[in-house]
């Protein structure tokens, strides 16, 4: 899009950006800063804005029994599998739906939409029964299957929008230059889809990473808990009360992989765009 922006507009945009940044980050800052406070300073008459004289106790408690690592491994496996499989399937389907007209196409699109409309809180018991029948309870594969299906409708729809957004003329132009249709697609269209793939990939990652309703019933084996399920151990205990410090510390830890994932794909995709642009 137009990069030539007049200075006043840019300054205005920058100011809004900074305000938005602060509004987005304040709750996150509150989480991270609380994670360094002992329980009796987390909540109080006068809020503690800067955690001076903080403590690592919360983190020590979170790491104490080694269960964090188990949950991290499970969560990472399930999430990365989900993102990989969902993006691949969704990408293929989006191309089909966007670039071809075939029978059943509309039904497919509408089905995807309707699936999105069903509340997960109503479905999970049936999904449990299904996984039980397939002997896939407490299994990474079982959870992944359901997660893939739950992010697919969104990813297909969104990616299809992105594919639609790439003018067919570009591909045709490339074909005139001697590329095969497939070649034109990979050389011209795919690089332009990179931002869309990043956006949907991040979406799929966060959905799978934070999902709770299904994971809490499917992964009952303590070694197989996903991070959100593992986290609730700190929210509710009759003999300890709510352990806010540990919630904040573990939530901070849970947030970090998402950021890493984003940074990694962002860089890859940005270099992908430039590479494509040069060749195209």
């Amino acid at each position, binding site marked *: 899009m137009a990069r030539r922006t007049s200075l006043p507009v840019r300054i205005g945009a920058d100011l809004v950006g900074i305000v938005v940044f602060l509004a987005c980050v304040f709750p996150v800052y509150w989480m991270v800063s609380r994670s360094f406070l002992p329980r009796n300073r987390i909540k109080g008459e006068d809020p503690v804005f800067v955690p001076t004289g903080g403590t690592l106790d919360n983190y020590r408690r979170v790491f104490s029994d080694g269960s964090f690592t188990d949950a991290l491994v499970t969560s990472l496996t399930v999430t990365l599998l989900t993102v990989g499989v969902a993006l691949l399937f969704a990408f293929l389907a989006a191309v089909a739906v966007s670039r071809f007209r075939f029978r059943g196409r509309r039904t497919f699109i509408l089905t995807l939409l309707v699936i999105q409309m069903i509340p997960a809180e*109503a479905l999970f018991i049936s999904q449990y029964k299904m996984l039980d029948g397939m002997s896939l309870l407490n299994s990474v594969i079982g959870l992944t299957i359901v997660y893939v299906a739950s992010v697919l409708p969104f990813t297909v729809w969104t990616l299809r929008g992105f594919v639609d957004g790439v003018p067919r003329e570009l591909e045709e132009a490339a074909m005139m230059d001697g590329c095969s249709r497939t070649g034109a697609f990979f050389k011209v269209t795919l690089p332009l889809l990179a931002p869309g793939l990043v956006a949907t990939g991040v979406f799929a990652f966060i959905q799978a990473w934070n999902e709770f309703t299904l994971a809490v019933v499917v992964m009952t084996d303590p070694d197989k808990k996903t991070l*959100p399920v593992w986290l609730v151990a700190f929210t509710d205990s009759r003999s300890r009360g709510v352990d806010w410090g540990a919630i904040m510390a573990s939530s901070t830890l849970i947030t970090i992989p998402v950021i890493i994932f984003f940074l990694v794909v962002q860089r890859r995709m940005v270099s992908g765009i430039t590479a494509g642009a040069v060749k195209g």
Partner: protein
Amino acid sequence: MARGTARRSHLPLGLVLPAALALGLALGYPLVRQVVLSLQEFGLAQQFGQAPEWIGLGNYRELLGNGELWPVVLRTVAFCFVNAGLTFAIGLGLALLMTRMSKVTRVLTQCGLLLAWAMPVVAAMTVWQFLFDTEYGVVNWLLTALGGDFDGHSWLLDPWSFFLVATLVVVWMSVPFVAFTLYAALTQVPEDVVEAAQIDGAGPRQRFVHVVLPSIRPVLLVVVLLQVIWDLRVFTQIYTLQKAGGVSKDTNLLGTYVYTLGIKGGDFGMAASAAMFMLLLTVVLTAPYVRMMLRQERDA
């Protein structure tokens, strides 16, 4: 548009197949069962093996007839439109602004959005509760420090105020997705096309309406639609706030209502029929919009 040769004509089906199989495998049975359950008297006893009794539309009759439903529906629809509207407006505005920002601020804004998006829901809800706590909340502390009379103000007590807080939380959680996706769509608009329009003498507004908008429209429409759908079934935020304060029966939305019927109430037949009702409501509410989308693509 039969542009393919015979050899290529089965390609689209092949491309759709993996996604269709995955969906059929993971959702086929649960969806069918959902419909079946909604026609049965199915409680905990049936869950543990007693034979369920078919009662036809009995669950639906009870659902529609008990007077609890309609206020919940009205509340849900209003909440959904306000939230989806706000989220979309803020998200789009932000996406447009991001294309105008200097690189540093843009990265900063993106990081902020990502952090808000990535924060685990449990943590986000805990922090929002801290911020709006009646006795020790930062919001009350700040407003009091600024001279207001907010000492011990209960934000969740009054349903209007409850939904104000809920809206703030839901919008805060959903804007990142909208802004990210729309910004991605904007960056996808080929720069040379925009430049060409500029050379042809198109002003910024014209460029936006005639070049940028058509190109991001498919994504735009999807984002609006999905936002409406998600805001119709919002659950966790409302449920957590209900536990934290306020009066539950005055603040139920369909999501929490279905949950109280099913898991809390142990009546899965009713919960299934409520879920089907929600599905129907969503279809009805979004039908004009979906029709528009489909019509447009026939033109395309």
